[in-house]
């Protein structure tokens, strides 16, 4: 990209997903956004005569051909998302209409936008800072209502402020150390070591809690993954269906490419819960070798919780061997045990622990407690931080910040000279700057903008 394309190109892209839908939006941005649209738009007013923040109704006409009746929203620079002149053309959905509109625009000098280019222009025109640009990507990819809200808060700049705050405090610390290093013993007293140690430990704790909140963030962004295991005919599928029905959510059945597993998504109070059923368990009915079944193992490893389904009519302890296997192979992983087909057991089910539930997928009895237990698990695992949404890039950097600061603390306690401590603290400051965009790092830009698909 050279200077001329950044300033003079007019770009366009479909801003809504491809496919069948009620409406589609084509977004055009750049110095010629208004004039290229005026070549096709016929209404009571031209778009050129239209002030910013105004919507016009009219026909989109290419040559002699009426493409569609559309509305065109006009935004005038710098009061638009990108900071340039922007027109958003809202036409009827379906793959063809929007494509015809795009083709016309491309013919007369607009260019197809690169992935993330709208947001990149917003960044260049200082409408967004780097973490806000990242938040746009997060918002687009958010899989939960809470995630979207959090990303929206980050878009408002809250996360940047947190990181800037940490960085400012570190700058105070380095100031003390540099003062001590730069003046001879005769001029300046040594900084109180216990004070330094307290300052650094506090910072390490905060950075760690931010860094570990990536787990919460991942759940909010991508959903809560539950591996469902159980012997064949334990009623996993009917449990799935019952949960789906109860939650009145959109059903999406994704068959694995090798048909090794089934994943379904249900929404529980605005959280996406991905339930995965593992074929491995289904096939190995009596000899349960979790160790040996790679796919099952990796699926459980990547899950936030395991749900064991037992056919209670075969005995309440029928799957205890399986439970034991999971516990010993995945220590620390949260588990729920569902005693299904409770309606077939005379006298009902007496749960043996707080994570065990009796229910009947067929009749729907006892499903609400299961659903509530899932919700409680999600809330517990996302409680760490809901005011910022840390993504992988930021988490990686935060882990590096934490390790630099820990190394500084280690130098402090083992009595190494403070010029080493200074190296670690300076590097932590630089890394925090990379997160917030306060220091300049050429790699950061690429990483951030590579997460966009076209049109954002």
């Amino acid at each position, binding site marked *: *990209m*050279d*200077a001329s394309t*950044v*300033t003079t190109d007019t770009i366009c892209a479909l801003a809504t997903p491809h496919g069948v839908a009620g409406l589609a939006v084509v977004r055009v941005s750049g110095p010629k956004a208004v004039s290229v649209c005026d070549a096709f738009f016929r209404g009571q007013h031209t778009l050129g005569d239209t002030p910013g923040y105004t919507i016009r109704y009219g026909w989109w006409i290419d040559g002699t051909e009426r493409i569609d009746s559309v509305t065109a929203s006009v935004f005038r620079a710098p009061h638009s998302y990108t*900071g340039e002149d922007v027109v958003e053309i809202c036409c009827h959905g379906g793959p063809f209409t929007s494509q015809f509109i795009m083709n016309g625009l491309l013919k007369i000098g607009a260019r197809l936008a690169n992935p993330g280019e709208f947001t*990149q222009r917003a*960044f*260049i*025109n*200082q409408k967004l*800072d*780097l973490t806000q640009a990242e938040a746009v990507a997060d918002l687009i990819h958010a899989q939960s209502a809470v995630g979207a809200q959090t990303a929206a808060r980050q878009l408002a700049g809250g996360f940047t402020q947190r990181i800037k705050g940490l960085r400012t405090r570190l700058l105070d610390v380095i100031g003390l150390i*540099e003062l*001590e*290093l*730069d*003046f*001879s*013993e*005769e*001029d300046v007293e040594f900084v109180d070591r216990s004070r330094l140690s307290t300052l650094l430990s506090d910072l390490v704790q905060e950075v760690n809690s931010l860094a570990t909140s990536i787990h919460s963030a991942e759940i909010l962004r991508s959903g809560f993954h539950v591996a469902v295991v159980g012997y064949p005919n334990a009623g996993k599928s009917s449990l799935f269906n019952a949960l789906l029905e109860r939650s009145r959510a959109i059903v999406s059945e994704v068959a694995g490419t090798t048909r090794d597993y089934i994943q379904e998504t249900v929404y529980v109070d605005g959280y996406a819960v991905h339930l995965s059923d593992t074929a491995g368990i289904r096939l190995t009915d009596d000899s349960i070798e979790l160790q040996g079944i790679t796919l099952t193992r990796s699926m459980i490893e990547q899950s936030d919780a395991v749900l064991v389904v037992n056919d209670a009519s075969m005995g309440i302890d029928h799957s205890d061997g399986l439970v034991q296997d999971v516990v010993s192979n995945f220590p620390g992983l949260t588990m729920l045990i569902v005693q299904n087909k409770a309606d077939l057991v005379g006298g009902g089910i007496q749960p043996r622990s707080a994570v065990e539930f009796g229910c009947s997928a067929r009749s729907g009895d006892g499903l609400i407690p299961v659903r509530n237990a899932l919700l409680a698990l999600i809330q517990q695992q996302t409680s760490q931080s809901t005011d910022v949404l840390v993504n992988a890039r930021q988490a990686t950097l935060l882990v590096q910040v934490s390790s630099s600061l820990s190394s500084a603390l280690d130098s402090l306690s*083992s*009595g*190494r*000279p*403070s*010029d*080493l401590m*200074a*190296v670690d603290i*300076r*590097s932590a400051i630089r890394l925090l*700057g990379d997160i917030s*965009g*306060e*220091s*300049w790092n*050429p790699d*950061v*830009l690429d990483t951030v903008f590579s997460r966009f698909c076209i049109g954002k």
Partner: protein
Amino acid sequence: MKQAKYDVLVIGGGHAGIEASIAAAKMGQCVGLISMDTNTIGRLSCNPSIGGSAKGHLAKEIDALGGVMGRIADASGIQFKMLNTSKGPAVWSPRSQNDKDLYPLVAQNLLLSTTNLEIISETVVEILVSGGKVSGVRTASNEEINARAVILCSGTFLNAVMWTGTDCTKGGRVGEPPAEKISDLLSSLGLEKGRLKTGTPPRIDRKSIDVRRFEPHNGDENPVPFSIHTHSVRNQLSCFATHTTSRTHESLEGGFSRSPMFTGLITGAGPRYCPSIEDKIYRFADKDSHTIVLEPEGLSSNTLYVNGFSTSLPKDIQDVGMRSIPGLEDATILRYGYAVEYDFFFPYQLTFGLQSKALDGLFFAGQVNGTSGYEEAASQGLIAGINAALYVRGEGSFTLQRSEAYIGVMIDDLVNKNTEEPYRIFTSLAEYRLLLRIDTVYDRLLPQGNKLGLVPDHVVSRYEILQRRTNELVQATQKTKVAVNEINKMLVEVGETPITEPTSAMNILRRPKVSIEQLLPMLDGVEQSVYQEHQDVAHRVDTMVKYEGYIEKLHRDVERFAEQEQQVIPPSFSYLGIKSLSTEGREKLERIRPGSLGQASRIPGVSASDVSILSLYLR
């Protein structure tokens, strides 16, 4: 009348002028050094001392590149001390106390014994320009001296005014007149100038006080010279420490109404890091005492320099204030402190080779660039001298990177940053402080000095011996396995955990509380006596081993940094067209015109998002 033509003319015989003349002459140029009063060449105008925190690094770097400051300091030194040994090796820094009469004599002898170099006693009133290039100078006696390059090292003398209280005298140093015409002439050529201030403390008579009442500050037990050329140095005198009291502060405050600083008579900004005593009292009102060190000005001098008491207050106030200091009740002031206000030229107008961007062949070095300190001036003089010689030869310029030398850090800062106060070097200004240690200075710079023709081969051979010793010792620590019973007693004594199986000496040396000296007797094939003699080598190996991880990490950072430096911004690049740059960022970029993205990112006022935007434009 026209004099013989010179290749390089150096104006001013201070620390910058000396290095510039000798470097250019050694590089084969015919050099003229012009001074208003040749007896004043090489004077220590302020404190009788060379080196100190970070400044000692500069003095060592000058030596490694083939400059002379370290040699002069060694030959005229009366006390030598390594500062900051209680801190990390990156901030170890040598300092000497020097005989104020001897220092200029040694300097002048060096100049006189340099071939191709003539000393000219004259005042320059005009810099001659022809065809957009410098062509020489005109002197006060209306002589034209032709030269292909001119290096301006005028120190604090441009339009200089001295202040003591409200008394004001024209001059750049006590008893010496200012240089008045050059500054205006350069302004008329379009160069932007500013005004700065510096000061010096009173000197007192040693005979008027009893030095036995003070805590002596002595040199090191084993004094180490600055220069690789010097074999040994010796401590001959002590300094003495005392402090101001609240009574001192009260009496000085009594003179604030007649202070040229506080009444607005002096408009130039002073150095924040070397403040006057009145500044310290005003800014640190909660401190009721400041350290004062009495430094002898020489072996045959009764004068004591009152370090920490720089002032431009009226004379009567200086007397009263001085006598309120414990031990100085009867002190006689031989010379009162004063402030000097002078013109400087903003160094953003220079290339990294210290040549004027506006006028080919004109170089600037020293305080005229807004710096403070002998060492800062001398290093610039050296770089300007080298580059003037290269310019005359028609060769490309010689510059040092920030990752290579404090000199590189300083010049990069000068070109990129605003000079709002006199610039002083600090170790914290270096991103790669750990790499710029004094024990690495000859690795970093001696080969470059040799290539330039400033460091003779026999000095390089001496350095290579030290290199070999260093490598041998490193290898010995790698190879030697230390037995459990051999080392555990010592480990426990110093407070380290004992080992359970034979371990390499190198691994043991990595522990913070173990020193190389303790391991020397155990190392295979190492003659202890060699390293007892070469303690610097032993100490160096200690640092190399202990800091290895950090040093490697910094080297990787340097490589990353180099990539940014290679992202070239074309000289013709127009910032004005990029509306999205911040207003301040655009102005700074337009003014300084950085050569690379890395440089742009270091300009204050150019934000990270400005640089990101630039980088998108440069793709």
